[in-house]
């Protein structure tokens, strides 16, 4: 965990200095939500249940952008090689990178949730605990796969095209569970048992994705 913490601390320091990923991710996510609001909100009336899908689309698209940039940064000065040379278990480097992406996406979600709630008149904050559980568990699953793929693709020429092509099909279950759970939270009579089911499914997917990523990171990153 010490190595993961060092990598996370380094990534956050670099990001605080440059604000490059934070700005681009937020700008892209907010633009995405605004475009949907302009297109779908008619005479002050938003489409029913639309907010859940739009929130997750913004998270997924902005997340893809952030994932690509995180490893691009390690490629520019070949610092990824230096990280891989460290006498640490290589999965610890993956964990550090993953925690950085999760932190960044959660920061973006803190801005996105009130924005979507306001523009689509959605009661997103009526069950804050459950919303946080859905968003955090969904973000972990999405970022777990995305961090592995963006590390794998760091030397591929068409990495910007390949990342979403590989990432979205694998993370479809996470996005579906996230959208369904969020949509349920927007109902007038929220069925918490159903929300709990989706959160449990998301947590199960998190365990599977993180375990697989930890298992495959070392062989994938050698060579």
């Amino acid at each position: 965990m010490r190595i993961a913490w060092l990598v996370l601390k380094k990534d956050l320091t670099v990001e605080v200095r440059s604000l490059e990923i934070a700005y681009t991710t937020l700008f892209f996510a907010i633009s995405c939500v605004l475009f949907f609001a302009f297109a779908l909100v008619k005479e002050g009336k938003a489409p029913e249940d639309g907010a859940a899908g739009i929130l997750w689309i913004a998270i997924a698209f902005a997340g893809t952008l952030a994932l690509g940039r995180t490893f691009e940064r390690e490629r520019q000065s070949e610092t990824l090689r230096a990280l891989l040379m460290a006498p640490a278990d290589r999965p610890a480097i993956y964990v550090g990178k993953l925690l950085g992406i999760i932190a960044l996406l959660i920061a973006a979600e803190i801005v996105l949730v009130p924005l979507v709630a306001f523009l689509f008149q959605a009661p997103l904050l009526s069950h804050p605990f459950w919303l946080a559980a859905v968003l955090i568990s969904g973000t972990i699953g999405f970022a777990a796969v995305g961090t592995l793929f963006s590390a794998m693709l760091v030397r591929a020429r068409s990495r910007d095209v390949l990342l979403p092509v590989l990432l979205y099909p694998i993370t479809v279950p996470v996005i579906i569970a996230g959208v369904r759970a969020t949509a349920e939270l927007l109902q007038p009579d929220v069925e918490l048992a159903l929300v709990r089911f989706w959160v449990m499914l998301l947590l199960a997917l998190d365990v599977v994705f993180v375990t697989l990523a930890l298992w495959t990171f070392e062989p994938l990153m050698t060579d």
Partner: protein
Amino acid sequence: MSIDFQELTAEDVSRHFGRRKALSRISFQTRTGSILGLLGPNGAGKSTMIAVLATLMRPSGGAIHYGTYTSPAAGSALRSRIGILGHDLFLYPELTARENLAFFAGLYGARDANGAADAALARAGLADRAHDPISSFSRGMRQRVALERSLIHGPRLVLLDEPFTGLDDASTAALVARLRGLRDEGAIVVLATHDLDLAEGLLDEALFLRDGRMVDAVARPGALRSTYRSIMGRSS
């Protein structure tokens, strides 16, 4: 687990990228207190050899022996005894020199990472620039920080890939002196370069590579440029 070794042996090492042979059956042996030069034109396989020795790349055939250890069997314990300075400097431009060195010292398990970074900066003669971001440094200064980064954990095997690129005379002289110091301290230094004038008088052994093949190996090479011409002329 802490490990150490006195010899480095490459045994019929090959590395293929698809059908292209970047290295073909390279064998050599070197030991502590020596500087081995990998010499050859661009595309000779020098950087690939450095990457294989650094455990960043697996050989397609053959093996590297670090004393009695091999990679990947010795894994992270072996990596803790290897330092590498590549074409790129492996430094974060947004971080200060001290933050960069402290980060890598931490990765290598230094108890006092900031203390190790300060000592490294003093060795590089850059203590007064400790809190400046790397992006504000000249190429020579970055190279000095990068060299200290690669040595911050006291490696037994030091791998340098074209370390003289972009350095002025003063920085080159300082780097040569540092490499001689490492040899005297008992490190195994492997240096890949195509700059024969700078390698002149520095190498204890020279390995001449061409198109991924070892053309010749010379101990205590003198008059490198004429030796290089005669060996490469013979092989073409």
